[in-house]
């Protein structure tokens, strides 16, 4: 069975797209081939900046012949029906077979679909794959109409077996498939022929191209570590950068250079960000000083001066970049120390946050007022909270954050420290943005918590007020993330507060109920991820104080735990049964059975036992609920399960004796009332 080699050779493919593209090539080709009946034994795909490569092992030489049998009309059917059948099958009458069936003689057709040579199928599938390739962005070039990520120059498409190599005949928009490719753009640009995958990979290596991106990444990382180690340092790990750099070179050459002493006092994050963002350098740390003192750059070639010119050039660019960063840092520090961070906050009066929600300064003032109001509930000093909120976004006016927006918050912390602000304030400058995602750490310092809550609540109430709510997949202002942030800030810090009150404080006149509904939806998603069913949450949502999210979560967790026990599930059944009977009787009798159950009318032992159990547990459950000890309340509930089960087992509620019947209904109503102290169990499914 032959092996297949495909190479799509183009101008430089963006690094971030290469891995996915190699996978897509493999998937689309193999899916298409298999669908056409052409199976294979193994497939591997690779990418470099200039090529996507797919190698298939053990491809069928041709697709198998397919036979299909079709039942036709009866022999004595009208002529038209028989002609129609022949047309559909593409046969003549003498090719049909007559079989005896129960209803008489019937025509049968056997249609044979001959297998097709592999080359024909491959050409078709590759043509379709290239034309419909799922690039995130594609383009046209020259006068052609073909789309590819960048101009596509040549295609290798060859089948190799014991007899030799054949080119699959294929022409896509004037690009004819062949058996040639080129090596490294600068080190080995001449084209050469290949006879199969192994020949291809080894010739490429001789032509200064490492085909496998993982091999390039490994080589880069290994060499970078070796060089750093040799001077007693460590490379700062960055897998995203490593993958990107491996996608920028076909022949990686690792070079290490020194960062000029003038820049060693810059915060390490600034050095790292500047080097990574602008130049795709790795940072190299000196473990003795804890500082970043060197950098690693990866060139795409060897040179006769062993990279000296390249390194010098890179070093020069770095010098200019870091001069900029140092300039920003020193200017910013001068302002932070001299005038203080509030100068920056004030200039934010000229920056629009949103045209309907005012300037950044107005927003900050709102956040400060709200943080002050929320401070007592989170155990923060209101004055510190206000002070922190007023400077927490000041760094947005700093030159460093203008240049590197991703350093917002972090720079604020540095500048607040430089301005000798209290450490809680400095911490809040950085921490108040958190949590950004579901796995991001939640701030714990009370001042940070107050500012973070105020920031997110202001955003939510503001966008709610101007009717910019998230719809479907659209959430341009990340309001879902803000709501989740608030949920986590409250719950993970066990903060107790009425969210409705807080919403009203953030935005008097806000539609608090609507926004609370949004929080409840986010809460369901959040708790579902923690394994708590939506019906459990529904059962808790209808309870009082449902805008105290910490309480709500505690309740839902306790109920969820309880429902995981035997007692829990059975009690729910008992509750539902009691509730159904009482509700039906109430409808039928037109009265409400709510109180007055008396043990003296109890006839049987099970009835008496239930009275005793309710008398014993009701006050305990009530007391536990008052003290919000949900766990204890659930234990109390668990004690009710056996008496309730026994009651339904042994007692007929609808006694002929009306006094006894009424007493029993009132008894069931007590069960309902006690359970309703905890949650609305009728919402529980199953």
């Amino acid at each position, binding site marked *: 069975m032959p092996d297949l080699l495909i190479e799509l050779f183009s101008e430089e493919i963006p690094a971030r797209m290469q891995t996915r593209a190699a996978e897509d090539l493999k998937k689309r080709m193999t899916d298409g081939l298999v669908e056409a009946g052409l199976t294979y034994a193994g497939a591997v795909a690779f990418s470099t900046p200039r090529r996507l490569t797919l190698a298939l092992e053990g491809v069928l030489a041709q697709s198998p012949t397919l036979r299909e049998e079709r039942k036709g009309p009866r022999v004595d059917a009208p002529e038209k029906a028989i002609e129609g059948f022949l047309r559909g099958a593409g046969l003549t009458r003498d090719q049909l077979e007559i079989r005896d069936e129960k209803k008489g003689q019937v025509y049968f057709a056997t249609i044979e679909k001959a297998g097709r040579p592999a080359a024909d199928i491959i050409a078709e599938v590759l043509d379709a794959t290239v034309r419909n390739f799922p690039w995130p962005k594609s383009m046209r070039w*020259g006068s052609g109409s073909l789309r590819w990520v960048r101009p596509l*120059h040549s295609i290798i498409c060859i089948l190799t077996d014991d007899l030799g190599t054949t080119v699959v005949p294929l022409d896509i928009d004037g690009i004819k498939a062949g058996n040639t490719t080129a090596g490294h753009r600068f080190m080995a640009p001449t084209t050469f022929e290949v006879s199969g995958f192994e020949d291809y990979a080894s010739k490429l290596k001789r032509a200064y191209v490492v085909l496998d991106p993982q091999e390039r990444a490994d080589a880069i990382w290994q060499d970078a570590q070796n060089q750093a180690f040799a001077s007693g340092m460590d490379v700062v790990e960055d897998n995203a950068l490593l993958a990107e750099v491996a996608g920028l070179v076909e022949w990686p050459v690792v070079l290490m250079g020194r960062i000029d002493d003038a820049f060693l006092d810059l915060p390490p994050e600034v050095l790292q960000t500047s080097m990574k963002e602008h130049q795709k350098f790795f940072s190299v740390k000196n473990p003795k000083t804890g500082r970043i003192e060197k950098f690693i750059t990866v060139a795409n070639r060897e040179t006769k001066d062993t990279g000296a010119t390249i390194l010098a050039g890179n070093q*020069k660019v770095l010098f200019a970049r870091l001069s900029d960063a140092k300039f920003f840092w020193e200017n910013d520090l001068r302002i932070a120390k001299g005038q203080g961070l509030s100068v920056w906050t004030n200039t934010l009066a000229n920056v629009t946050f949103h045209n309907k929600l005012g300037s950044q300064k107005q927003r900050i003032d709102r956040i400060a007022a709200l943080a002050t109001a929320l401070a007592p509930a989170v155990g923060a000093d209101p004055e510190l909270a206000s002070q922190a909120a007023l400077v927490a976004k000041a760094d947005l006016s700093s030159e460093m954050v203008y240049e590197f927006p991703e350093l917002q918050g972090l720079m604020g912390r540095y500048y607040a420290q430089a301005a000798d602000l209290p450490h809680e304030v400095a911490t809040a400058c950085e921490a108040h943005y958190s949590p950004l995602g579901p796995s991001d750490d939640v701030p714990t310092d009370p001042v940070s918590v107050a500012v973070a809550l105020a920031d997110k609540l202001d955003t939510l109430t503001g966008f709610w007020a101007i009717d910019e709510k998230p719809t479907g997949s659209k959430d341009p202002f990340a309001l879902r993330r803000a709501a989740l942030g608030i949920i986590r800030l409250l719950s993970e810090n066990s903060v107790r507060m009425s969210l409705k009150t807080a919403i009203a404080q953030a935005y008097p006149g806000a539609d608090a109920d609507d926004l609370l509904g949004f929080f409840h939806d986010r809460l369901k998603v959040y708790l579902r991820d923690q394994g708590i069913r939506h019906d459990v949450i529904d059962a808790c949502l209808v309870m009082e104080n449902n805008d105290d999210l910490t309480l709500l979560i505690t309740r839902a967790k306790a109920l969820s735990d309880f429902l995981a026990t035997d007692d829990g599930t059975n009690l729910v059944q008992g509750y539902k049964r009691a509730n159904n009977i009482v509700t039906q009787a109430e409808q039928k009798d037109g009265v409400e059975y709510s109180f007055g159950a008396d043990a003296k009318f109890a006839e049987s032992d099970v009835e008496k036992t239930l009275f005793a159990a309710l008398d014993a547990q009701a006050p305990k459950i009530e007391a536990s609920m008052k003290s919000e000890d949900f766990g204890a309340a659930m234990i109390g509930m668990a004690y009710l399960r056996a008496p309730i089960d026994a009651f339904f087992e042994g007692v007929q509620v609808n006694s002929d004796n009306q006094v006894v019947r009424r007493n029993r209904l009132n008894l069931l109503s007590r069960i309902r009332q006690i359970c309703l102290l905890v949650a609305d169990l009728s919402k529980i499914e199953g």
Partner: protein
Amino acid sequence: MAVEKPKSFQEIILRLQAYWAQKGCAIMQPYDMEVGAGTFHPATTLRALGGKSWAAAYVQPSRRPTDGRYGENPNRLQHYYQYQVLIKPSPPNLQELYLGSLEAIGIDMDLHDIRFVEDDWESPTLGAWGLGWEVWCDGMEVSQFTYFQQVGGHDCHPVSGELTYGLERLAMYVLGVDHVMDMPYNDPQTLIPLTYGDVFKQTEEEYARWNFDVANTDVLLRHFEEAEAECDAILEQEHIDPKTGKRIIMAHPAYDQCIKASHMFNLLDARGVISVTERQAYIGRVRALAKKCADAFVLTEAGGHGL
């Protein structure tokens, strides 16, 4: 085969001119209006539209008022030069042609590390975008390389290949100069050697002061609106000129007004009187003009009408 190193800023420009002339480009002169980048020259913006083949190269003085630093920053200027090449349809060997131009200005391909790093180009004011790269030489961005996909809202058919060299930065790199003002403008061995600073330091100061603090914003705003109105008025004219009876669509004069509006916007921006939200609105207004001019140009002969 290393080419001898150039000695001055102007020698680099002259070598680029000679190189692209030799490769068949029409060497155009700079457009005689204030523009933000070489792309604004009608030889690029308008000529990238329509089915007619085109090959042009030129130097374009470019103005970015917000980048003024009174001549003190080593590589930021409010007035600088771009070298621009536009070839339509983009030839299959455009990358090789481009690399040849780097060799022509003395960059030894055997010693340097040249990389094509993804950088998609978009001009919101021109309603234009394309895919391509920024070209790195030893980590330094030396050019933009773009395959135009759309200009003025029109799909480009055929596609133009555009090369843009930031001349000062490129020259500083080739000449090994750290501050733009120290760069030799002409041959340092000549009778009257001049540096870039001798030629431009004073003008950078003058314009920075004017751009940032003095330009009359009321006047700028009025100019913006007048240019916008004039552009519309030009394009509303009948295609048949009543005087000559000829079909004359005035795409270029209208486009001049678009350029003017764009520059007025840049100046207003530098004066800091445009808020973030207004910014988008102004850009949208300039883009609307650029689109109308593109609509008009494709109806002209140079725009491929009647092909």
